[in-house]
């Protein structure tokens, strides 16, 4: 069984679902990328490997946070070897597709090196204390580098392979260091609702900041007597202070970047508008994911003198509040984008509508009100991924396809408004059913 230290962990509903859902998607993505040339293929190969690594990272995180993980002899080494082995298999798979799909074929060594680096980074992102915090900044750096560097990776293979090897080594070392595993064991099992930001407030260097903030956030407010038990108070108290602050900080930070980067006329001259739109979608997508994972159900709090109906009102208001807050914070950036690109104003509007339409689906995927294998966070993550893909598809269809079907702006607004209302009605019905029939603890709507 020691040989299955990591492989054994993959054989569970979440692992099987991930393999079944993502592998075909990855193959299609890689084939399409190959058709567009080796340069594009290398980028997509990196992305695919990153997702495989990220899934491996979540699995490793679950293991590392078990109470036995620290004392289990040779455990880190066994996990490291098998995680690296899986990475090699994924890279070989990707490289093989590159050899047959890209014309001319992408250099195998380059694909493997970039792929393994992305895989290792994906794993480290979930395992290391700083990973989830650094990730947005790493992504920003990547996007910036990708946008400003005229020469793609494929034009400098030696440099790319050297950097990839260094990144791989650094990521693997940090993921499997004794420091990371100490931290994981002390942190304990991943709580429901913690995925992307899992645990970074408890990083070794965090306590000072954390102490300063103690009692100052919404959690502090929630400790006050629940006089009045208003819906607003419930919404505030259902966010944890650290998570809420982290989310706001992330949104603010990314928005500032967005304003600076997308709204700047200097950057507007860069002929990569499509890439910036993709980047904007990423921001919104990640914020939606984080928002949906970041919830803390009001129902799981003990001794709240709330009826089921009150919990329902709180949950629904909270679900409405998420897209509202995100759009509010992003509005300066969106305005800057619209001013800089007036021809894309309608596109931005339709994109915003899709965000609002899809938000309930994200919230459902993050916390399906069911037990058994569906309570597995890995499964929830896959559901989010599936919903995310559907979201991107819908974004594409609505943003580009709707004007073809409905030419009048007013009619488009009506259609989008109906879709927004419809999604909220469905969400209300789902929550109503949940709070009418389900246990108030153990699941999270």
């Amino acid at each position, binding site marked *: *069984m020691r040989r299955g230290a990591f492989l054994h962990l993959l054989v569970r509903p979440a692992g099987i679902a991930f393999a079944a859902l993502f592998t075909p998607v990855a193959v299609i993505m890689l084939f399409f990328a190959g058709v567009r040339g080796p340069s594009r293929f290398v980028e997509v190969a990196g992305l695919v490997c990153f997702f495989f690594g990220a899934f491996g990272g979540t699995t490793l995180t679950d293991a590392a946070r*078990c*109470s*036995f993980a620290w004392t289990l002899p*040779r455990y880190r080494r066994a996990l490291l070897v098998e995680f690296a082995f899986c990475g090699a298999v994924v890279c070989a798979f990707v490289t093989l597709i590159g050899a047959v799909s890209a014309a001319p074929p992408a250099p195998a060594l380059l694909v493997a090196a970039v792929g393994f680096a992305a895989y290792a980074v994906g794993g480290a992102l979930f395992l290391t204390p700083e990973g989830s915090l650094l990730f947005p900044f790493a992504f920003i750096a990547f996007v910036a580098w990708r946008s400003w560097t005229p020469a793609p990776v494929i034009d400098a293979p030696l440099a790319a392979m050297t950097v990839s090897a260094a990144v791989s080594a650094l990521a693997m070392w940090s993921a499997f260091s004794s420091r990371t595993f100490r931290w994981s064991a002390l942190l304990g099992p991943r709580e429901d609702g913690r995925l992307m930001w899992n645990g970074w407030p408890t990083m070794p260097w965090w306590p000072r900041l954390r102490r300063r903030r103690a009692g100052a956030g919404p959690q502090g407010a929630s400790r006050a007597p629940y006089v009045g038990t208003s819906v607003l108070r419930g919404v505030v108290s259902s966010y944890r202070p650290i998570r809420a602050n982290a989310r706001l900080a992330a949104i603010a930070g990314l928005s500032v970047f967005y304003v600076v980067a997308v709204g700047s006329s200097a950057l507007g001259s860069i002929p990569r508008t499509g890439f910036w739109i993709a980047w904007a979608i990423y921001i919104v997508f990640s914020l939606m994911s984080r928002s949906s994972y970041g919830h803390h159900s009001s129902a799981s709090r003990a001794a709240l003198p709330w009826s089921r109906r009150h919990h329902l009102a709180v949950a629904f208001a909270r679900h409405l509040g998420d897209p509202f807050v995100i759009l509010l914070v992003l509005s300066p950036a969106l305005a800057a984008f619209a001013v800089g690109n007036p021809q894309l104003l309608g596109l931005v509007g339709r994109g915003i509508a899709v965000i609002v339409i899809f938000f309930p689906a994200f919230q459902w995927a993050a916390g399906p009100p069911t037990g058994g294998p569906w309570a597995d966070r890995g499964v929830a993550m896959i559901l989010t991924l599936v919903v995310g893909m559907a979201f991107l598809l819908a974004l594409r269809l609505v943003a580009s396809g709707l004007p073809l079907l409905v030419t009048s702006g007013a009619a488009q607004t009506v259609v989008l408004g109906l879709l927004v209302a419809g999604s909220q009605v469905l969400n209300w019905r789902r929550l109503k059913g949940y709070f009418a029939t389900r246990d108030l603890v153990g699941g999270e709507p």
Partner: protein
Amino acid sequence: MGEMIFEASGLTKEFGEVTALRDVSLSLRGPSIIGLIGRNASGKTTLLRHIVGLQLPTRGQARTLGVATRSLQHEQLARIGVVPDAPAFMRWMSVGEQLRYLSAFYPRWDMERQSSLAGLLDLDLHADISGLSTGSAQKLAIVAALCPHPDLILLDEPVSNLDPIARDQFLKLLLDVVQEDHATIVISSHVLHDIESTVDWIVCLNNGTVSADAALDDLKDRYAEWRVLARTRDLPDRFADAFVVRQAVMEPRCARLVVRTADADVLAFKRAHDADVEVAPLNLQGLFPILVDNGRH
């Protein structure tokens, strides 16, 4: 006493401005069963985490099984079994699968012990971990910790979630393990009545410092309870005798005192206060407040 199991010298652990352990110097030798007691937030769990190397000292030295805790390798870790206060396992496995997964990493995993412990603690090997109660998860942690025949077993509040029957069985089991494996067990608990019959050495922490580190029998010999009954006149409001450590119950005609036996002269006390005195041994529950307040006496 035999092998040095854990040795701390000037061990201090700070979390920002909070000092969890303060200049702790301690030597634990085995085989023995050591009770680690103290009030809430006295540093018990932090000390256990230092023993296994999960937390590292801010200052001072800590060595477990002869190796600095910062450098513990798999050879040492394989000799340590841990039952944390809130054990966590892989929720998608069954109990049996989890144990099989763990067993592959230990050179001395005892399947026979696994079966007997599971039976003794009434732990269903086919049950899903996600559905285990807190007590059953603790039982699983106990089985997982004992099956590799560890030389050092660290138990952080192991009986807190066990029902009375399982608790009794578990404590008897510890005695068997010490006898069979010659292991050293460090058990942290607030259920003093239960561990009293099991432990032979007491380490008491108070506000991060060691307030007692002695054999339980020695501690019991050091103190005694006097039940004082006045014969003719009322007892004083307070006894000023230096050997009186604690005045537990004070009424006009009777009192219950805890005294330091080395200095106490029962005959002189009887004469001085014209009272009858019944001497009774102190149990761990009675000793606890004294041990915690040791610095003041």
